[in-house]
């Protein structure tokens, strides 16, 4: 049997129960106790005399047709969280968006939505969003700003518009129309998460400068060289949907542990400089005229099997590489062509438009007369940001469209803040032919103006965004608004294949000497390039792999950690940046990996998040940032690790909620002996249950944020996370087995199991947690007195206690609260309710119609967002339901089955497509 472990620490000391407060600093002495007791008495005395006041009921003067007070309605729109542009349904209550769900009718995302997409709704209610245009750092109005820009533009010749990828045809049209007025106008596009080498390689080989549209649903064998396509690369939701439905034989070669690597059938560590070498060998195997190649960095037998698999799956395989190295991408194109993947899994005729950047164009910014910066933050997110800042100071007119005061807008003469995408009209074409509309779900909350409206104004032809989109639209407008997206025929002039001459010049692989490490900068799943740095939900989301919140850190391999005597949290100096170290199993020994996207100015706002109390530690001071900016190190080929001797606490949740040494993960056969204290009552009309397919789950954590948004789960701040008091109702346990190249990773979402013989119910002295007739374990907040007996007795550690009231640090964010779910107060236990508000809604609706609740009519928040379709919820009393089918599967198992608590939540065991004899399978394949 394999040993599963959550961290190195746990592997070395298997059962290490850690008390929340035992780090020595936090002992409550007699004086503190008396102080606390005194305050508590005073607080009780002060609050006991309140009487609820009379509420006002204020009806509309003229009721809008679509709004029924108390009833949700949905607006089909498009997510602008990243350039992937997934389809969304915005759930609105009483005229305001409260939740974002995936749009099942969208041809790419097909109902899935990632953690970032889910969290963007919080950004709408951000009080730090600029309230209106700014001129010279002072609030101004649109007339003055427009007048100044018009005046400065009258003499401008070299005008530049600098953006990240804009997948919006209408916005691009407005920019082009604007630039056409000038003698030398140019639209410069760059991406921090760049794929420009892929586009460049296709320009050479296919004559089209474009990133192909990858189709993982058409590949049964996938070879990925450091492309984190399930996490951050191009279009993660679409890829996850396709990949998990097919679950191809997938081999990942990568230097750091990515989300994609953690899900691969096989994963090998690879130095970033070795990608070209591996591909050259591969190209040689498929006919490239290479000879005298340096030896492979891994065993020939492994390589032979990759070749064999790829050859067997000709026309049905896919090779992708994440690096931004044209030589590597040329080889990738060669191999894909040799395998006949073009036209199948690699679609270049209708390419992806999600990365259009070309970093070479950045040179055109020099000596500009006017510069307009939209949708990016170049001073922060370009490696050469500080040099660019100097350039900006010399440009006569710099206009920023930033929604927050950011690193770049500091240098702007005028800031013309853009709308939040939930407030604006826009159109999108993420993949050629796939057209979707962004519709506003609420009127702009601030005095902002859309980018394309601003450009239209300065072009002298003011038009609203709606007019600009509608005027160019052909087709059924109303239907497009209703479904959110439309697929159009793309006239593909099949690109000429001109040049498939692969080149490979061996690199000097000795860049990494014994004391030097190659720096790998990667986008974190929640933060990407830093554009969501103002989102508290995303900061508190445990990273899918490392489980660290509220920080970036320098990941090193266990061997490197031993060499430098590093443990988690030890502060190291890398280049000019000091960061906590993090020991990451499965990482290449020659690299240090750090997430970009942290260290944004303005993140000191989160100093306010979390409770203020006697023993609370200030973890963020004014002027500090959450994490550190590291992108400036991108041009350093090799770095050293210097230990500073200091250390800090990383808010990692990976060892939280341990089940006191009981193995939470494991589908092994177990006997269920004995009965529960109370008989399992199955008297209800329904028997709700859930099954999670571990073979589909990638651990992407979208469900965690979906649950947070749906159920008003608070943000507690870093200090409370360190104290193991995070409040997420659903956590994703991540287990490792093995080490190095044999490292296997398992992601397992755990929430309240809704046990039939619930141990929590028997110990509650006030019956605040009881069983419902339809199989749910109910938590009644208004009865709970906070003894926490239930949490102690929960074998899965799925209960969360409100140690404090956790109000939003930003009061404006209260508008995002779901009015259908109680906001829990201090001293109350809470846990997954199985989205009982959704069950009730469906029950009432079915009752009104006089029908039975159809299978699939109730979708849990986690289930709805799951891009991998790993979660199934339904009624066990209905033998035809999806959940009943899952229960019948021979892969079905339940956690800690031997306790006989009869959980309603079950799992479908992980099947592994690892090669026979190589590695091992976790469970037998489903026959």
């Amino acid at each position, binding site marked *: 049997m394999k040993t599963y472990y959550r961290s190195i620490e746990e592997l070395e000391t298997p059962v290490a129960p850690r008390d929340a407060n035992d780090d020595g600093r936090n002992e409550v002495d007699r004086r503190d106790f008396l102080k606390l007791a005194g305050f508590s008495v005073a607080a009780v005395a002060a609050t006991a005399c309140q009487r609820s006041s*009379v*509420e006002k009921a204020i009806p*509309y003067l*003229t009721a809008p047709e679509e709004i029924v007070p*108390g*009833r949700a309605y949905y607006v089909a729109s498009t997510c602008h969280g990243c350039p992937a542009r997934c389809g969304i349904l915005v759930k609105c209550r009483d005229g305001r968006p409260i939740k974002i769900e995936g749009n099942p009718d969208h041809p790419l995302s097909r109902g899935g939505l990632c953690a970032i997409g889910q969290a963007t709704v919080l950004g709408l209610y951000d009080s730090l969003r600029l309230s209106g245009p700014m001129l010279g750092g002072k609030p101004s109005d649109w007339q003055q700003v427009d007048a100044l820009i018009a005046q400065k533009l009258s003499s401008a010749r070299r005008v530049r518009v600098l953006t990240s990828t804009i997948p919006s045809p209408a916005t691009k049209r407005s920019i082009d129309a604007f630039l056409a007025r000038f003698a030398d106008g140019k639209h410069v596009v760059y991406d921090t998460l760049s794929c420009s080498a892929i586009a460049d390689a296709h320009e050479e080989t296919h004559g089209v400068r474009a990133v192909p549209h990858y189709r993982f649903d058409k590949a049964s064998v996938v070879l990925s060289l450091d492309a984190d396509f399930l996490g951050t690369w191009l279009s993660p939701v679409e890829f996850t949907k396709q990949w998990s439905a097919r679950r191809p034989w997938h081999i990942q070669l990568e230097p750091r542990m990515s989300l994609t690597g953690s899900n691969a059938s096989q994963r090998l560590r690879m130095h970033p400089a070795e990608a070209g070498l591996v591909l050259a060998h591969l190209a040689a195997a498929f006919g490239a005229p290479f000879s005298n190649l340096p030896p492979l960095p891994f065993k020939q037998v492994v390589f032979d099997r990759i070749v064999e698999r790829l050859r067997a799956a000709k026309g049905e395989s896919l090779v992708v590489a994440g690096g931004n190295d044209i030589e590597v991408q040329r080889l990738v194109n060669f191999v894909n062509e040799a395998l006949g993947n073009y036209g199948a899994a690699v679609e270049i005729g209708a390419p992806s438009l999600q990365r259009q950047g070309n970093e070479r164009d950045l040179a055109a910014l020099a000596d500009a007369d006017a510069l307009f910066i939209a949708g990016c933050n170049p001073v922060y997110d370009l490696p050469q940001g500080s040099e660019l800042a100097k350039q900006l100071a010399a440009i006569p007119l710099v206009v920023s469209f930033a929604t927050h005061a950011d690193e770049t807008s500091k240098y702007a003469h005028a800031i013309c803040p853009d709308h939040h995408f939930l407030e604006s009209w826009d159109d999108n074409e993420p993949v050629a032919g796939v057209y979707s509309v962004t519709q506003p779900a609420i009127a702009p909350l601030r005095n902002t103006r859309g980018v394309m409206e601003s450009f239209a104004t300065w072009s002298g032809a003011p038009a609203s965004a709606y007019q600009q989109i509608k005027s160019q639209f052909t087709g059924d407008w109303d239907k497009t608004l209703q479904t959110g997206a439309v697929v159009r025929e793309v006239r593909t002039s099949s690109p000429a294949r001109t040049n498939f001459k692969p080149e490979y010049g061996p690199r000097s692989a000795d860049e990494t000497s014994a004391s030097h490490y190659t720096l790998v900068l990667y986008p974190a799943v929640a933060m990407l390039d830093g554009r969501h740095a103002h989102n508290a939900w995303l900061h508190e989301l445990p990273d899918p792999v490392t489980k660290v919140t509220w920080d970036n850190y320098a990941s090193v391999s266990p061997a490197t950690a031993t060499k430098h005597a590093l443990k988690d949290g030890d502060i190291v100096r890398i280049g000019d940046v000091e960061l906590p170290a993090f020991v990451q199993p499965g990482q290449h020994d020659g690299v240090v990996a750090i997430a970009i996207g942290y260290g944004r100015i303005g993140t000191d706002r989160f100093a306010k998040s979390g409770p203020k109390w006697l023993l609370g530690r200030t973890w963020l001071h004014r002027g500090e940032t959450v994490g550190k900016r590291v992108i400036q190190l991108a041009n350093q080929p090799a770095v050293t690790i210097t230990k500073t001797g200091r250390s800090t606490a990383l808010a990692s949740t990976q060892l939280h909620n341990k089940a006191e040494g009981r193995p939470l993960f494991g589908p092994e056969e177990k006997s269920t002996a004995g009965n529960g204290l109370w008989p399992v009552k199955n008297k209800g009309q329904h028997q709700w249950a859930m099954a999670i397919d571990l073979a589909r789950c990638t651990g992407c954590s979208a469900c965690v944020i979906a649950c947070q948004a749906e159920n008003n789960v608070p943000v507690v701040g870093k200090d409370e996370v360190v104290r193991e008091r995070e409040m997420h109702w659903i956590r994703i346990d991540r287990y490792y087995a093995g080490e190095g190249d044999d490292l296997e990773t398992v992601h397992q979402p755990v929430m309240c199991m809704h046990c039939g013989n619930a141990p929590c119910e028997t110990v509650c002295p006030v019956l605040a947690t009881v069983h419902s*007739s339809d199989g749910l374990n109910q938590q009644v*907040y*208004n009865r709970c007195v906070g003894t926490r007996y239930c949490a102690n007795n929960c074998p899965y550690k799925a209960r969360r206690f409100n140690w404090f009231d956790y109000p939003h640090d930003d009061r404006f964010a209260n508008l995002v609260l779901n009015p259908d779910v109680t906001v829990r107060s201090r001293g109350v236990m809470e846990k997954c*309710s199985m989205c009982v508000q959704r069950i009730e809604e469906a029950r009432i609706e079915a009752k009104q119609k006089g029908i039975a609740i159809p299978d699939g009519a109730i979708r849990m928040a986690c289930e709805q967002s799951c891009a991998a379709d790993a979660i199934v919820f339904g009624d066990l009393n209905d033998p035809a339901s999806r959940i009943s089918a899952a229960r019948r599967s021979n892969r079905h198992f339940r956690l800690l089955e031997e306790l006989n608590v009869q959980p309603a939540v079950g799992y479908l065991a992980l099947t592994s497509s690892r090669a026979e004899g190589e590695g091992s399978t976790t469970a037998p394949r489903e026959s």
Partner: protein
Amino acid sequence: MNGRILTIILSVAVVFSAIALVPRLIAMRLPGDHSGFEPEQPIAFSHRLHAGELNINCQYCHATAQRSRYAGIPSASACMNCHKFITSRRAGIRAEEEQAKKEHRKPNQVIAPELNKLYLAIKTSTPVRWNRIHQVPDFVYFDHRPHIAAGLDCQRCHGPVETMERVRQVETLNMGFCVNCHRGRDGTTLNGHPVKATSDCSACHF
């Protein structure tokens, strides 16, 4: 001696405070019980006239009771469905017509003072701020829809509103009130059948 004076003082104090507290003790009710609550409203709207005398269906105005958790308070535009034309009681209009006949002039439009408040609200775009009467605590998710679908009379919880000039809360609307009916203990019947509704906590608390 001292002890005696102290005893007397204390006894007097106890008696006085008892006298002061007695009315409160008599009127004492459980927290959250607001039965009898009858606040004055910004417009003296008469349910007796509309629901009683004119026999307008409850859901004509409280139209979302069927579609939403909340029965809803009608928007001013819903009032205007009728009050665009009906500006006063008929008696007032008649009197003005007769007066006009006598004085050989065209009758003036008669606007009842309470209705004028509604017209003013629309004219100035200021929604009417009604005082909410029937209210359950925030941790209770009462939903009108299943109760209406089950065929329950509005009066079962809201009392004889059609007889009230100003609406008053009749029932306690506490949990006992709900649960007794859900369990069929209080004799309420639906179409001749006893009530059998869910008594799961999560029917109302989530």
